[in-house]
């Protein structure tokens, strides 16, 4: 008689091993004769639940590669990638890397970054809410001390740089998009800020200098260090205007000394 642990491990191996695999056949010994053939129901449920979770996070990828290839790739990914949480929303974080390594995707060079964008939008959708920055608190700091402040980005903010115009690829592949426009990959590299500072998750194209500043702040750099990084990209970078705009847009929501 198998222990509970042995039985459960064998069950998981049998599901992922497939019906014809040795694991599946060995596990059948643990089942009553009349119910053996219904193990397949659990196999189907498992693949279908995980595939649906991926479809919910990666609708643009599904449109780009087609439903059939997506289902095939998802099945492979589900087989290879253990879910490590009882919360299904956590599943699929490494799907972009899986696509990057998939031979069939080699020619679709923009696919991994588009998938990264969809995952970050999924993260932003579920990330914490936050009140706007307390202007009175900031007003109490003498302006010549600003450089030493460390600003916090809104918890939903994510930064993503890509060699391809993935924001355009995302836009023209929305279910409700009437655009039939093709995207010219030669439009070149982009830097994106993904955030949900109001009701919905928004994509914003930002300059190289602004991206550098936000990236420095996201890594707990001081405002002074962030401005230096931005000036490296663009000597005309206007630090004051950046700070004002990002506070109003709720990109920056808190600070510490």
């Amino acid at each position, binding site marked *: 008689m198998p*222990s*509970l642990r042995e039985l459960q491990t064998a069950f998981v191996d049998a*599901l992922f091993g497939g019906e014809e695999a040795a694991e599946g056949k060995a596990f059948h010994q643990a*089942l009553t004769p009349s*119910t*053996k053939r*219904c193990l397949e*129901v659990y196999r189907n449920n498992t693949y279908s639940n995980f595939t649906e979770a991926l479809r919910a996070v990666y609708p643009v990828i599904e449109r780009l590669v087609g439903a059939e290839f997506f289902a095939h790739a998802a099945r492979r990914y589900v087989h290879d990638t*253990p879910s490590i949480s009882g919360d299904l929303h956590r599943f699929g974080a490494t799907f972009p890397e899986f696509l990057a390594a998939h031979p069939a995707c080699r020619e679709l060079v923009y696919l991994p970054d588009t998938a990264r964008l969809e995952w970050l939008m999924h993260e932003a959708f*579920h990330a914490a809410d936050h009140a706007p920055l307390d202007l009175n608190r900031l007003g109490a700091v003498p302006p010549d001390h600003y450089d030493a402040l460390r600003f916090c980005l809104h918890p939903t903010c994510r930064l993503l740089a890509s060699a391809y115009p993935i924001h355009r690829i995302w836009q023209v592949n929305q279910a409700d998009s009437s655009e039939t426009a093709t995207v010219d990959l030669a439009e070149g590299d982009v830097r994106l800020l993904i955030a949900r500072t109001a009701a919905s998750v928004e994509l914003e194209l930002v300059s190289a200098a602004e991206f550098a500043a936000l990236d420095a702040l996201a890594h707990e750099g001081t405002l002074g260090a962030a401005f230096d990084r931005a000036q490296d990209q663009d000597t005309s970078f206007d630090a004051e205007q950046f700070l004002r705009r990002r506070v109003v847009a709720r990109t920056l929501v808190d600070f510490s000394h």
Partner: protein
Amino acid sequence: MIVRPAASKADVAGPIPARAGIGLRAPHYRELLERQPDIGWVEVHSENYFGEGGQPHWFLERVRRDYPLSLHGVGLSLGSADPLSVEHLSSLKGLIERFEPGLVSDHLSWSAAGGRYLNDLLPLPYTEEALQVFCDHVAQAQEFLGRRMLIENPSSYVAYRHSTISEREFLCAVAERTGCGILLDVNNVYVSAMNHGFDPLAYLAAIPVAPVAEIHLAGFDQGQHCLIDTHGKPVAEPVWALYAEAVKRFGSVPTLIEWDTDIPPLDVLLGEAAKADAWSGARDAVAA
């Protein structure tokens, strides 16, 4: 700082009433808030609110002001030989503190082995070892959450040769040993009875009346070799008939209409809820 809009006791609806409610899913959020239909309560899947904020929380906060709420888990994996996930329990506890649900439940099943989750409700072998593990986990969860949980009987498609106890005896023993309540899924009783060849009425007759604090109703599909609990159809006629028998035995109990695949317009769910109230006589009781 995480903004937690105030949910003072006065702002939230009360305990779960003994009438029909519906399983609330994202496609119906807006319509439910706008129409405020006359249903007794709503139930949501706890894990759908394990994110830290955003729309799901925003809607649940508003729904909660108008309707009593039940939190129904699908991911605690109480039947695993693995230890319980403290992270999962903490997320659930956070939701309970914030939304003050009338009932909190999960399943007589398991979903993870060796840290790998299947995110499905898998059947347990009904053995003394599994019973001990399950009871220990329910006791640990109730202790951690500081409240009683309800445990739901699952639909199952396979059975193990080495099971030594019947499912109903196993469920009753869990309730007796841990003090947990029972969420009696009448559709699951029917599906499992057909799949494993037991008498659904005998199953109901074996469940003690006092611990049954909630009933679930849903639709199933006919699979190739067994009935499958898909939650994608209206409640079947024989399940309504079994529900009538359950009402006779357990009295008027909070009853939930669940629908999770091919989700229909809200009115279809409301129609099923009204039907449940008619079967149980709950509507007459409310009117009187």
